[in-house]
């Protein structure tokens, strides 16, 4: 038995209200009048554009200082990694680990995983669609946590001002880092997970799914 998808029957799910509708030219949803599409339009192009922009900004985000501390002893410039090292050396290794995961590991793994997903869809890879779908869901969930360092800098900068012994100011790295987080979130949203399954459709399917599809087309 072959799987039946909405696309094969020229049907499409409305992204706003979840109503299934017939997809003729310029079709609108019968319930909420939203334009219907089989897949997110230009999904791969948008995802690539946003991903490449995120990769480019990833370099200054990690090399430029995110914070500058001016004190009597001179100026100290902190990058994201030196911030993690500071937390580690001062004994708060749990926080060091959290910040490392949120600010270093997640952005890098997210960019690499998105690249893997887009490439796998483009070369029409049929392997392991379920793990890839799960990976996509995970990326949607964790991307936001990278904003952590932006918030830390914002609070430190507001508190440590002229009244105290030191003054902290945000460095240019924080702008690049915030941009990486926003761009990679946008890249994840631009990607359509249904593309993963489009190439995997031809594979055999288990009994439960095939009965679903049969009954659906009979209805």
């Amino acid at each position: 038995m072959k799987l039946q998808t909405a696309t094969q029957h020229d049907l499409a799910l409305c992204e706003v209200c979840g109503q299934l509708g017939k997809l003729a030219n310029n079709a609108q949803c019968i319930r909420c009048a939203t334009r219907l599409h089989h897949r997110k339009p230009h999904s791969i192009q948008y995802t690539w554009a946003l991903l490449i922009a995120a990769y480019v900004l990833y370099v200054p985000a990690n090399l430029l200082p995110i914070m500058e501390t001016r004190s009597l002893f001179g100026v100290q410039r902190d990058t994201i990694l030196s911030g993690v090292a500071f937390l580690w050396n001062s004994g708060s290794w749990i926080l060091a680990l959290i910040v490392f995961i949120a600010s270093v590991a997640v952005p890098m793994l997210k960019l690499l995983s998105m690249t893997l997903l887009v490439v796998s869809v483009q070369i029409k890879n049929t392997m392991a669609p379920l793990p890839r779908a799960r990976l996509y869901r995970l990326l949607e969930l964790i991307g936001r946590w990278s904003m952590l360092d932006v918030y830390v800098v914002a609070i430190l900068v507001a508190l440590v001002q002229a009244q105290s012994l030191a003054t902290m100011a945000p460095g240019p790295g924080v702008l690049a880092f915030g941009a990486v987080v926003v761009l990679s979130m946008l890249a994840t949203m631009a990607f359509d997970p249904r593309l993963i399954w489009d190439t995997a459709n031809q594979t055999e399917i288990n009994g439960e799914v095939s009965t679903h599809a049969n009954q659906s087309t009979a209805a």
Partner: protein
Amino acid sequence: MRDLTACPECDLLLNSTHVTATKGGATCPRCAAELFRRHPDSLERSLALTCAALVLLFLANSFPIVGLNIQGHQVETTLFGTARQLWRDDMPIVAVLLLATTVVIPLVEMLAMAWILFPLRFQRRPPGFALLIRALQLAHPWAMVEVFILGVLVSLVKLSHLADVLPGPAIWCFGALMLVLAALSTVLDHRTLWQSWERAA
């Protein structure tokens, strides 16, 4: 055709009367994506949580988040103070990003929710329903209150080496807000909203 539906994440065609639903909802048999969720009194609970979130959001922004005690000298900052300092330090984009993700988007989201839920609760159709649902879908990933809380905690630890740190009242409000928003996103289901909209006159 009436009973047909498709999985939003893998496009599998499904007969909604044959989808094996558990008490809590249903998932796609092929890709395990969530198709819908069911919650008793979804509308009422969502409305109550929305009101609670609006109050907490107001409190969280009126009181200082953290304070510092440096040699008897006290400094404290609210969320708006934090954004103002970033703006002064030539980081207007970061200031806007901070305010948007922690105040503006959660506020707009909650106001839109209240606008939608109040009429639906009394079987009326709220004006601009489809547009607001679309806006809520777009805005939702950008509300990052829970990340902000973690950011406050990390900065507290970093500052504790410099001076005495005084957690402000707003930190508790943000903590409560985080829990309320988490509860709201489990109770609320867009399918329930559309079904109540269809039933309403």
